[in-house]
């Protein structure tokens, strides 16, 4: 998995490309948690994320919990319908709001 992070108008845009699974999840966790500080804003661009495994969902939940603890803000964008469905069926659908585009996700945090 390729992880790209850029900052745009005070918001971290995290782009995850490929499969978020037990191979890549530890890296994602490390890189993303490093960026979370009190009040930070973060948007995940998931358009190019093809699959999220059980381990991947766990990392997202860990991130979501840290965001909450640090009074930070995060949203997702571009998750495929199939991934959204899997998240709903396994109970991982309450972590972040999902938007069609990165811009919509950014606007939701403002």
């Amino acid at each position, binding site marked *: 998995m390729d992880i790209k992070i850029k900052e745009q108008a005070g918001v971290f845009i995290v782009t995850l490309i490929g499969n978020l699974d037990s191979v890549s999840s530890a890296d994602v966790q490390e890189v993303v948690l490093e960026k979370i500080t009190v009040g930070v804003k973060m948007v995940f661009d998931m358009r190019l994320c093809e699959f999220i495994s059980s381990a991947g969902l766990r990392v997202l939940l860990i991130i979501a919990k840290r965001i909450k603890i640090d009074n930070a803000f995060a949203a997702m964008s571009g998750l495929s319908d199939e991934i959204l469905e899997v998240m709903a*069926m396994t109970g991982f659908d309450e972590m972040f709001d999902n938007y069609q585009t990165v811009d919509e996700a950014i606007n939701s945090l403002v």
Partner: protein
Amino acid sequence: MLRIDMNPTHTFGEFKLRHGTPLPFGATIVPGGINFSVFSRHASSCELALFRKHEEKPFVIIPFISEENDYHFVIGNVFTIIVFDLPYEEIEYAYRMDGSNDKARGFCFDKTKYLLDPYAKLIGGRDIWKQQPDWSNEYQHRSRVVFDDFDWKNDKPLEIPFEDLVIYEMHVRSFTAHESSKVKGGSRGTFAAIREKIPYLKELGINCVELLPIHEFDEFENSKLNPTNPNELLVNYWGYSTVGFFAPKAGYAATGKFGMQVDEFKKLISDLHANKIEVILDVVFNHTAEGNEKGSYISFRGIDNSTYYLLTPEGYYYNFSGTGNTMNCNNPIVRNMILDCLRYWVSEYHIDGFRFDLAAILSRDEKGAPMANPPLLESLAYDPILGKCKLIAEAWDAGGLYQVGSFPSWGRWAEWNGKFRDDIRKFITGGSGMVGAIAQRIQGSPDLYHWRSPTASVNFVTCHDGFTLMDLFSYNDKKNEANGENNNDGDNNNHSWNCGWEGESSDESVNFLRKKQVKNVFTLLLLCRGVPMILSGDEMGHTQFGNNNAYCQDNEISWLNWNDLEKNSELFQYTKKMIGFRHDHPVLRHNKFFHNRDYMNTGYPDISWHGTQAWNADWGDGSRTLAFLLDGKHAKEGTIEDNYIYVAINMHWDSHVFQIPQLPEGLKWYVAANTDMPEGSDIFASGEEPIIEQQFNFMVGSRSMIILVGK
């Protein structure tokens, strides 16, 4: 805090290793790696085979003992190793065990066989229901590693008192597999689909679902083509043949193809709990899917045959289960495995109770003889983690041991009351000489459980095994040709009655009678002391077209047709309101037996018996009428006040006038239910019961029941 023992100490090729920890058994994620631990008393050596997911050949086989690499990862009879840097979701693992192959001594080690871990918590190989596997693959049921965490949020154990439970026995696929269920296309017949139907279960009013086996099983076991439809495969549909006791059935999860069945099932349980519905699992510890001498190597047989199975002195399998083998349940190793398993489902999955299939087998010793105090059952009864769990026994087995009323209980075990089922069926279909027995069933079967509690009796008239309720009144004889056994399978002793016509009928009077009989059963079932259990679908008049043993039918025979809900709306409404009646009236629900006397000095006994004449029940052999009066002031030993409830039962083919016992001054009788009336006036919700004009007598129709409420 970092551990000082978290680094590898040895290598095997490119793989970094360390001595593992023997407990817990199975594969456990530890810092940096995975701890593998497996027991075998008789194996001389053991190897760990690691596969990339779905691949036929392992990418490495690591021995637990290696002189060359200077390690010996064995403690006692446990092989245990930590392998570092494994991507846990991407791999599958198996064991290979070497040892004696002396069958007469019960040994059948074969070092070429890849063996499933008995403690595997996730099992691959049958990821999608009924999708043909690659039969050339030597390793069919494949151990996987799962990370045991789940965000249970605020889930709390419901601990609904046993006497307040209304159990709904359900097959995961049957409930929503039919397209009429209108759940999302891809998820029909899965755990996720049950979640979509929770509002339905809430409306019905049940507060416990009992799921037919959800442990991993092989739907292809003994599968064959349907003789009446050669395009269809008959499968192991019910799943009473376990492959792995610690893993949920992948094919029951819409996300099974991604290996996410654990989360999907936990989410279902979490949502059911949030809606105040408990979850009981039907567990099958009496045998496994490995069959008899001709069966395949899946796991136990190759790991330690003589430990896990009951064997004859010649080394053959005892067959008390009727399925080829019998688990050696009172062997200390097997007993601990069962305990570990149940503890795992309670602590990791928040399961509320278990129903033990052919539980009489669990009371047999290592030679197969019944024991007075079976250590397994005692361990379960006293286990701290299972301390609040409902434990329900199917108190018989296929070897002829029948323990209804005598199953060793230690005050903890309840039983499927088979006598309740038979007596109610005989009585409602017009049998004579049943009135005395029915009085016992109404009271929670004190004749069977007087030294225990009415909650020892799980009352049911239908279950997955046998006719559905609608079929009970539509068929005199079973119609099992579709099972491919020349109608020789299934019980012949159904106590059923077709109401005048065999099978589906267009005769309105026949159909009216059938529905009335269904209502009669729900009425009596939900009035009796004990714990009522309803078979899923009976509330909408589900038919299996006379098949009383649909164990292999993954089709419309088994699947609920949700269009029936509209067609038989009056049955659904009746069942729902009858369940509501039970919930509304504490006098019906208690964990103690009636005393049959007036210990509260109210002028009425807690329960009194009547007939067509008040205060004068006809207990004679020819009697088919019985009435009883419950005094609400005696509800729960007089600690709660309820209404008076009078029930008149007329199972005679003619109508009869019942003289009604008189109420205290100022109170009146109201009609809560009358099964002889058409939809709309057959049952009334609490507070909406109409008063009866004539307070002294009531004409009860033929084969009908009435409930009056005195208030």
